[in-house]
Structures are given as C-alpha cells and as structure tokens.
C-alpha cells in the first residue's frame, strides 16, 4: 500500500513537473515571440526609414537634374530666334519642369518633420514662382522679344532659380540630417532592443529560476525524493546482491592492485577486516602464497596491459596462517582506452581443491585396486591351474601311498627272516623237505614279480608327479615374471602374450570343452605393458569362458584374432559364441562395479578398459544381443604415444 501510495505521489509529482515545464515553455515561447516581433518591428522601421532617406536622396538628385535640364533648355531657347526651335525648347523645358514638379509632389510623402515639410513647401513655392517667370520668359521669347526675355530672366528668372536651388540644397541637407538622425535612431534602436533583450532574458532567467525553485519545492522535490529512494533501494539491492555472492566482489587500482572496494565476504575469506583489505598497501600481493605470487601478479599485469579479462587460481595466506585456494575472475574497466579499474570476484575454492586432491588420491587408489584386482584375476587363474595340477599331484601321492601300503615287501621280509633263522645245513633240508621250504622259492619269485610291477607303477607315478610339480613351477615362474614387469613398456609380439594368457586358462578351456581358434595375422611387435596386457587378455578369456559355459551349448568356440587396423594400430579380438550381451548392458559393461556374474565384483572389464587406455588403446564390446555371442576388440597403437 505504501508503495502504491508512493507511486501515485510520484505520478502526481510527475504531472506537476510536466505542467511546470509546459508553463515555463509557454512563457519562454511568449517572450521569444515578443522579442521576435520587437526585432521585426525595429527592423521594419529602420528599413522604411532607410528606404525613405534613400528615396529622398534619389528624388533630390532627380530634381536637381530636371531643374538644371529645364534651365539649360531655357538658355538654349533664349539663344535662338527660330520659333520652331523655341517651341521645341519650350516643350522640353516644360517636360523637365513637369518631371521636377512630379518629384516635388513625391517629397510630400517622405516628409516626416515640420522642418522638412516647411522646406519642401518653400521649395514648391519658389518653384512655382520660377515657373511663372519661366512662362513669361517663354512667352516673351516666342512673341519675338528676346531682349526683354533675357532681361527678365536676369532680373527675375535667375534669382528665382537660385532660390529654388537653395531650397533643394536645404531639402538635401535636411535629408542628410535625417539620414544621420536615422543612423543615430538605428543605433539607439539597436541599443534599446539590446537592452530590452537583456532585460527580457534577465526576466526569463528570474522567472525560470522562480519556476525551478517552485518546482523543486513541490513536485520536483517529490520526484527527486522518489528517485533518491529508488536509487537507495537499487544500492541496497546491489549491496545485498554483492554481499550474498559466495565470493568477494572487489575493485582495485589497475596499476598498484590496491583494493578500493571489497564486499563484506572478504572478512570471512582471509580473516582480515574490509578496511584492512583496502588500507593496507600491497595487501593482495602480500597475502599471496610465495609459490603463486609471481605467476598471479604476472597474469594480472598481462590482463591490464591487454585490457582482457583474467581467470586464474592461486593460494593466499589467511590471517591464521592457513592456506586458502582462490579462484579469481577479473575484468579491466577501460575509459578512453586507459585502464581505470580492475574489478572482479574472489572465490574460495579450498574445499574444491581438497576434494580434487581426495578424488585424485581415490583415483590413484582405485587404479591400484584395479591393478591389484587384475593381479588377483591373474593369480586366480594361476592358482586355479596350480590347483588342478595339485589334484593330479595328490592323486599320484595317494596312489603311491596305496601302492606302498599294499606292497609285498613285508611278506618278502618275513620269508627272508625264515631263511635267516634256519642253519645253513638245514637250509637245504628246509628248501627240499620242509613243506614251507619247498613253497618258498616259488613265493619269492611271485613276490619279486609283484615288486617289479610295483616298482614300475611307482616309477610311473613318480614321473607324473615330477611333471606336475614342474608344471606348477612353470606357472609360478610366469606369474612371477608378469608380476615383476608391471609399469614397464616393452616391445613384445602380441601373439606370444595371447598364448601366455591361454596357457593360464588352458586347463579350464580343456575341461569345459572350449575350442580355441587362432586367426593370427603377422603383425610387428608393439609397445605394451606386459602385466597390463596379460591382465586384459586373462579377463577377456575368463569372460569368454564364462559366457560359453553359461550358454550350455556343445560347440563352444573362442576365436582369437590379431590383425593390423590401418597403419598405426593393431586389433586383437576375442569373439565367442556364448550368451551374448543385452543391448542395455553394452553401454555400461565397462562401468566400475557392473557384472553379470553371481560371484563377480565388476572390476575385470573396467580395469581392462583402463589398462587399454593407459597404453594408448581402447577396448570396445559388440554383441548382436542375447545368445548371439560377443566380440571384444582391443586396439593398441603400434608406436608409443608420449
């Protein structure tokens, strides 16, 4: 409601302001019209007076000419006795007189003062007198009395004409005086107009000042108050906005980087007061971490020089000494091509940095876990094979125990003891006469036959046992070889590595009736990490074995392929005709923790893909769907990427 009332008040004030402006404009326009009219009137008056003077001077000139002409013709007429010439001269003289009379008549319209009127009237009177004398002269002359005409001309005509000429001169002087008077009047009029103009302008200024003051006291004051309130609100909004930003808004001198403004968050950022930020010389550079000081300062100087924005991260030391990571976004404010201000935002990214470091550590830890998982996978294969061999070893050992338990060696010992107890004389008797003695040689022959068989059997089992132990020894030795080769890039033939992986799973493949098909093309050795590549192959082989085993089909087949893919890559494929992969699983089969095996942990393919990426290659899976088999393709570069 208060806001609505303020708006209405502002609207009314605006209307008042507009009305005041319109009123002032009307007054100014009226004054302008008056001034224009006054100047126009003065101009017209001066122009008319000037035209009158010019006209009067022109008429005087014409009058003087016509009078002189009339006089000249009269003198010509007096000089001849030819009546025809005299009549012509008389006509010419009268024509000049008529022109002069007409000019004199025009003077009446130009006379503005009594003196001028009297002068012209005197001129007209003298002119009429002269004309009368002139008429008598003409008459006398034409009547044939030239002497009388000359005499009268000398006695009357000449004085009369001189009087007319003096009158004309007087009129001329009057006009000259009038011209001077007009000039003075024009000057005076100009001065008066100027004074009026100054007066009216001063009056206008006074009126405008009074109007402005009145408006200021009334509507304008309201408008300004409303504007100030709006400005205050805008400033409060700005300050609220600035202070609500999760960062320090700042402004600084572009040359010294001395802060001229910082928002209140600055106190929370480093633990220094806002005044400390702005009043401490070199505060920014002084609080920079020593390792970042040169770089951050150089970036700011470069930004100022290029008038370009800058984004950078650096560390600052807080009041309590802890290290604060800062993200700075700043822009250079330029006026007429000169940097005048550096304005930006400082963001505390310490937590972010910590998170990044934790993430990096977790990543490394995860990689180690993956590596360990891969090793476990290999170890599982190794142990599995070792276990299988140990079964054979165990069987051989039990067989040897049973054979040894059922051996006839003990019977042979009793027969030998029987012979030892008999005297040598009795031995002959015993062997020939005694019933037991008579059976003894045959018994010994039977026992020796048995012993021979046992020996052969034990020998064969011992041989097998030795082979199994040797197999175990080989497996353990290979495991030790791969375990020792971790992280080392070697140029190795890829087919041999596949064979090693197959050997680890050889017993498994044989037990599950899986046919291994090798489609190896001749490819050059490539740079690989022996351990990582074995990890990949063991995983792929293990997965293929699982997919084939689950499928339940009798024609289980794993096709291994090695081929060139272009000039720079080698492509290794593990294609089985097992259960296949559902489309929805294809996109996440390499994700960490994803597995379809009941006892799986989701590390295998994920770590294999990571291993492939670490070696600059890629691992992709393709399947047409369930029961359609799957193909895993590993691509590795033929040269080591730096």
């Amino acid at each position, binding site marked *: 409601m208060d806001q609505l009332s303020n708006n209405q008040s502002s609207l009314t004030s605006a209307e008042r302001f507009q009305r005041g402006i319109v009123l002032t404009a009307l007054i100014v326009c009226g004054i302008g019209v008056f001034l224009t009219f006054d100047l126009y009137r003065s101009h017209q008056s001066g122009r008319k007076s000037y035209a009158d003077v010019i006209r009067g001077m022109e008429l005087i000139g014409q009058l003087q000419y016509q009078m002189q002409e009339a006089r000249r013709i009269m003198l010509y007429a007096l000089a001849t006795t030819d*009546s*025809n010439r005299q009549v012509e001269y008389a006509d010419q003289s009268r024509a000049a007189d008529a022109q002069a009379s007409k000019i004199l008549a025009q003077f009446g319209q130009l006379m503005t003062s009594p003196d001028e009127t009297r002068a012209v009237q005197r001129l007209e009177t003298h002119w009429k007198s002269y004309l009368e004398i002139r008429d008598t002269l003409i*008459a006398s002359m034409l*009547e044939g009395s030239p002497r009388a005409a000359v005499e009268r001309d000398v006695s009357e005509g000449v004085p009369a004409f001189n009087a007319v000429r003096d009158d004309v001169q007087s009129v001329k002087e009057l006009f000259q005086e009038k011209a001077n008077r007009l000039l003075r009047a024009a000057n005076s009029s100009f001065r008066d107009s100027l004074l009026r103009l100054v007066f009216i302008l001063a009056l206008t200024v006074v009126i405008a000042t009074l109007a402005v003051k009145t408006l200021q006291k009334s509507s304008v004051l309201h408008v300004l108050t409303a504007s100030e309130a709006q400005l205050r609100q805008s400033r409060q909004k700005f300050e609220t906005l600035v202070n609500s930003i999760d960062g320090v808004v700042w402004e600084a001198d572009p040359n010294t980087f001395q802060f001229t403004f910082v928002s209140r968050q600055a106190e929370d950022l480093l633990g220094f007061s806002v005044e400390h930020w702005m009043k401490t010389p070199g505060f920014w550079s002084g609080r920079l971490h020593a390792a970042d000081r040169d770089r951050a300062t150089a970036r700011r100087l470069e930004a100022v020089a290029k008038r370009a924005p800058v984004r950078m991260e650096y560390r600052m030391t807080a009041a309590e000494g802890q290290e604060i990571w800062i993200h700075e976004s700043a822009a250079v404010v330029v006026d007429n091509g000169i940097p005048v201000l550096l304005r930006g935002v400082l963001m505390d990214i310490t937590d972010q940095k910590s998170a990044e470091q934790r993430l990096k550590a977790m990543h490394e830890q995860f990689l180690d876990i993956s590596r360990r998982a891969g090793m476990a996978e290999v170890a599982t294969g190794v142990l599995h094979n070792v276990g299988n061999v140990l079964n054979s070893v165990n069987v051989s050992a039990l067989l040897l125990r049973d054979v040894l338990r059922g051996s006839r060696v003990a019977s042979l010992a009793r027969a030998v003891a029987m012979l030892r107890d008999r005297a040598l004389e009795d031995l002959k008797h015993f062997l020939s006469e005694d019933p037991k003695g008579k059976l003894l040689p045959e018994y010994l022959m039977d026992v020796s036959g048995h012993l021979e068989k046992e020996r052969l059997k034990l020998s064969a089992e011992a041989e097998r046992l030795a082979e199994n132990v040797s197999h175990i020894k080989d497996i353990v030795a290979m495991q030790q070889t791969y375990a020792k080769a971790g992280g080392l890039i070697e140029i190795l033939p890829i087919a041999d590595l596949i064979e090693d992986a197959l050997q680890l799973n050889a017993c498994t493949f044989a037990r599950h009736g899986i046919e291994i098909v090798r489609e190896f093309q001749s490819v050059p050795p490539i740079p690989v990490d022996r351990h990582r590549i074995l990890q990949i192959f063991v995983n792929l082989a293990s997965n293929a074995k699982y997919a084939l085993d689950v499928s339940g089909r009798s024609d289980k087949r794993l096709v291994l392929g090695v081929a060139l893919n272009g000039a720079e890559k080698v492509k290794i494929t593990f294609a089985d005709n097992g259960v296949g992969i559902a489309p929805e699983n294809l996109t996440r089969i390499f994700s960490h923790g994803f597995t379809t095996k009941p006892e799986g942990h989701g590390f295998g393919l994920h770590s294999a893909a990571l291993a492939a990426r670490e070696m600059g290659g890629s691992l992709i899976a393709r399947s047409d769907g369930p029961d359609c088999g799957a193909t895993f393709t590993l691509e590795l570069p033929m040269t080591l990427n730096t």
Partner: protein
Amino acid sequence: MIHRKIQLAVRVAALMCLCVLWGAVAGEAVTAKEEPLVIVVNKKNPIDNLSFDDLRKLCLAERKYWSEGGKVTIVLREPDQAERDAVLQQVYRMTENEFRRYFLQSSFTGEVQSTPKELTTANGVRRFVFNVPGAIGFVRAADVDDSVKVISLDGRKPGDVSYRLKISAR
C-alpha cells in the same frame, strides 16, 4: 380633277426627290472638299468669339492688343502650307507676296513691331499658342487638342455650316 391632283402630287414628289438628291449631292461635295480651319488661342485668353472684322484687324496688326491688354501674336504655318494659304486667302485676302510686302512695309513704317510667326507644323502652331498667352493661330480641326482653346467666328463654331474659315480637306 382627280387626274390633275395625281399629276400635281407626282410632280411635287418628284420635285422633292430632286431637291433631296441635289442637297445630298451638294452637301457631299462641300464636306468632301473642305473642312473648317479652326482659330485657337491660349487658354488664358478670355475671349471665346471674334468677329471676322476683328479677326482681320488682329491679323493685319491693325489691332495689336487684346481687349484685356495682352499683346497679340499671330501664328501661321510656313509658306506653301494649306493652313497659311487659307488664312491669306480668306482672312488677309492677299497672296503670299502681297502678305510679305504688307508686313515689310508695316515694319519699316513702324506700324507693327512683330510680324506673324511662322511655324513648320500644326503642332508647332498649337504649342506656340499654348506657350504665348496673346497668341492666336489657325489649325485644322483634327490638329486641335486640350492645350489650346478654340474660339468661334462670328458666333459660329468650326463645325457649323456657315462657319466662314474653311480649308481644303486632306
């Protein structure tokens, strides 16, 4: 009786027709040959009429001043001009030689102080009369304008049938 009346009427009608025809032919003959010779004076001159005798006296310089006192100045055309011949014939009743001898003699005897003025054109005559208050001149009616005053002769205006001064039509 009736026949006689008819004959008398016919004769009267015929006579009347003859008279009319004669008058028409005669009138046509006068207007075709002559026109009035107008007497002009200065507009300031109060006189409006002259008798023929007064005109002869003025022309013969037997009377040298107007009745109000102005000097009389006769204005004629130059010799061999129709207006001059008409004036000499009808007013002076002299030939050119008689006219010259008359004024030569009058000058020598002192009877006249100024002889009649001779102007080349009718306009000259008119302008002379205009400029000289006592001047009197003779021009054709067609040459008259407002600058001069036309006077009657023996009470007859120039357009009247009995106006005495005539000149051969141009």
